[in-house]
Each structure stands twice: as structure tokens, then as C-alpha cells.
């Protein structure tokens, strides 16, 4: 017989759709995510969105640890989905939020996560209009899993797509790579080390809409999350059938991130980012795009890192190394492991 205080931790009953679910929604979820659409608590949210061009996305968040330097699973869940809408050229208007919580999860911790979700959504100007909560046995969800789905409205004139990418287009990234992934790794139990590393988790909606409003040469954008810059560039290469050439010396990387990766044997190009986007832009607009990024808090270290080139045999991503050599950037396997070799 459990002697836990009833209102201290999540119980399986909190996901049962009855009294406890109701209590959870009214006492913990609604106060953090205040908006009219959500307050109706309908089975579906009623939105007034006049548009015939919408973007729609979803993502799940299973990060461990839940809290890390620079953010938490809640901030990630909002920014990650907002960024997917932003890179597609849309303004985020509404998010759905699904929580899967373990039996025994501390409600105080849940409150912190919900507060972060609410705060970030508020700052970005997007509402969480509908959601769901389920509970599972202890151990089945690493504490908590979150899914967010998002709807965005196409920004006027913005229609990025990989079919627009052409030889000669420049590739821009808005700042340093590897910060988020290496921060998470540094705080994982198996590899814990003290550092000043900080996740770059942030919403790119503002910066991207500024770019789309003030320039007309943006062909395609993607945020290099799992698999890092290496995965994103390989995806672009595969989808367009064109090849990519980047320069190692032009890629912004914090020395502390590089050193941490070197110590553990990781390749920074394959490490996740949560506040970065890769933009493929026309050569004429590259300088303007760069300037806009650099004048924004989230783009101070932006740089042109390479360009799109003709494919010779098969679409490839090639990097010119800092010693002037050339090598191929492979699609990462999907699970980066520390090495001693």
C-alpha cells in the first residue's frame, strides 16, 4: 500500500480521464498555458485561421536528462516544433501538446516543465490549443515523453522547397554547431563531466521571418537536429540530386565543444543542434541574409559555410578540411558512440 501523499506524484489514475485527469488539467496544465482555445477543453480546438496554405508538423521529445544547461524538455518541445514550422516558411499559430508521464513522476517537476512550455510559447506568440495526457507504469517513459504537433500559416511570398535549390546557391548557418548535443552528453549519467557547455535551444521563428520579409533569395531551410549538420546536408543532397561543398574553417564551432567532442571521440558535424538552421540562398542574396542574421541575437556567429555544386557521379557532401584536403561527409549512422580508437 503506497504511503505517497496523493498530490505529490503522478499516479496512473491521472491518465484515466476521470477526476484526477480533470484535476491535473485544471490545476497544473491550464494555468501554465492560458489561452481561449484551450480553455474550452473541447475534443478539438476551434481555430480561426484564414489561409489556404498551411504547414503542419509533429515531433516527439524523449531527451534525457529532462533538465540541462540552456533548457529542458518543455522548452525543447515548443522550440523544436516551432522551428520545423519556421524553416518551412510559416508563422506558427497553434500547437498541440501530448504528455506521456510515468507513474510516480513528481508533480513539482511537471509544474516546472509546464511553466517552461507556457513561458516559451508565450514569448514566441504561439498558443497551445489542445492536448492529451496519458500515464504509464514506472520505467516506461523515462520520466516523461512529450509530443507536440504544430500548425503554421505560410508567410507571404515564402515558399522554400528543395526543388528551388540550384548550383551556385550559398549555404548559411546561423551560428555554432554541436552545442546542444554535447551539452546533453555532458549531463548524461554514463558520461557526465563538468563543463560550461550550454544548449542552443531557441525559437528561430523571429529571425527566419525577418529573413523572409527582407530578402527574396531563400530557396530552402532545415534545422540540423538529430544527426547534426552532416545529416541535414546529406538529406538536402539526396533530395535535390545536387552535391554540396563546405569548408571546415568556415563552420563556427566553440572550442569548448570541439574539445569535449575530441575527448570522447565524437564528430561535431554529427551532433544535434536545437537553435540552428541551414539556409540555402541565392548567391545574390547571400550577403544580405548574412547581415540580417548577424544583427540578430540568434545569428551573431552566422557564416556562409559552402555552396551547392554539380553532381558528378552520385550526390555527395564534400568538405574542404582545414589543411586544404577534401573528404566526403557521410550520412551519420544514427547513433553516435564515444570512441577510444
Amino acid at each position, binding site marked *: 500500500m503506497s504511503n505517497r501523499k496523493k498530490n505529490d506524484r503522478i499516479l496512473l489514475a491521472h491518465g484515466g480521464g476521470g477526476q484526477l485527469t480533470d484535476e491535473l488539467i485544471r490545476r497544473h496544465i491550464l494555468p501554465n498555458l492560458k489561452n481561449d482555445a484551450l480553455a474550452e477543453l473541447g475534443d478539438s480546438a476551434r481555430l480561426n485561421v484564414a489561409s489556404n496554405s498551411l504547414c503542419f508538423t509533429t515531433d516527439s521529445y524523449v531527451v534525457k536528462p529532462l533538465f540541462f544547461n540552456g533548457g529542458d524538455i518543455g522548452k525543447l518541445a515548443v522550440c523544436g516544433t516551432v522551428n520545423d514550422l519556421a524553416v518551412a516558411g510559416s508563422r506558427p499559430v497553434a500547437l498541440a501538446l501530448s504528455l506521456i508521464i510515468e507513474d510516480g513522476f513528481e508533480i513539482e517537476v511537471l509544474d516546472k516543465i509546464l511553466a517552461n512550455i507556457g513561458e516559451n510559447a508565450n514569448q514566441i506568440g504561439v498558443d497551445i490549443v489542445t492536448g492529451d495526457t496519458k500515464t504509464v507504469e514506472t520505467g516506461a517513459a523515462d520520466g516523461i515523453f512529450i509530443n507536440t504537433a504544430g500548425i503554421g500559416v505560410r508567410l507571404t511570398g515564402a515558399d522554400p522547397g528543395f526543388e528551388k535549390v540550384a548550383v551556385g546557391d550559398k549555404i548559411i548557418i546561423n551560428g555554432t554547431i554541436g552545442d546542444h548535443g554535447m551539452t546533453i552528453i*555532458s549531463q548524461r549519467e554514463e558520461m557526465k*563531466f*563538468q*563543463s*560550461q*557547455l550550454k544548449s542552443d535551444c531557441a525559437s528561430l521563428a523571429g529571425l527566419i521571418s525577418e529573413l523572409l520579409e527582407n530578402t527574396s533569395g531563400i530557396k530552402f531551410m532545415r534545422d540540423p537536429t538529430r544527426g547534426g549538420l552532416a545529416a541535414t546536408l546529406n538529406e538536402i543532397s539526396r533530395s535535390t540530386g545536387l552535391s554540396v561543398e563546405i569548408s571546415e574553417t568556415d563552420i563556427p564551432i566553440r*572550442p*569548448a565543444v*570541439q*574539445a*569535449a567532442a*575530441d*575527448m570522447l*571521440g565524437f564528430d561535431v558535424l554529427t551532433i544535434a543542434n536545437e537553435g540552428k538552421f541551414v539556409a540555402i540562398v541565392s548567391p545574390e542574396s547571400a550577403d544580405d541574409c548574412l547581415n540580417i542574421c548577424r544583427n540578430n541575437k540568434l545569428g551573431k556567429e552566422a557564416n556562409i559555410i559552402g555552396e551547392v555544386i554539380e553532381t558528378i557521379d552520385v550526390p555527395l557532401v564534400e568538405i574542404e578540411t582545414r589543411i586544404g584536403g577534401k573528404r566526403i561527409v557521410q550520412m551519420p549512422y544514427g547513433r553516435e558512440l564515444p*570512441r*577510444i*580508437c
Partner: protein
Amino acid sequence: MCLAIPARIIELDGDKAIVDAMGNRFKAKTTLLPEAKLGDLVLVHAGFAISLVDEQEAKKTWQLIEEINDFMDTQNRISG
């Protein structure tokens, strides 16, 4: 079979050390390098210091060493 990077010993208690590589602090043992002292630059492999690093020689070949020194200078300036 040899991934190892230079790091500076910033704490040492017996053969248990904390080494610093650009602000990242890792545990390392100096069991295989009994002559290692606080402040030494050492090569760390799989959690063990395996060799002292000659700083002058290292500066000639390791970009990271120069950056370490710049980094430490900046840190010192910041902390006054």
C-alpha cells in the same frame, strides 16, 4: 587505438585527478604517470593520463594548445 587529447591537471588527490580541456572537466587517473603534478599538461586516454605533454613542442603542433592558452587568458581576465 589511440584517441587521446592533452588536458591540464587542475585537481590531484593521490592518483585521482580532474583534468581540464577548454573548460570541460573530466575525471582521470594518474596511476600510470606517478610523476604527474598539479598544473601539468597530460595526454588522457580512456580515463588515464598516459604521458606528460611537452608544452613547447605541443604548441608547434596542437591548435588546441594555443586555444587553451587563449581560453585560460580570457578566463583569468574575466575572473580578474
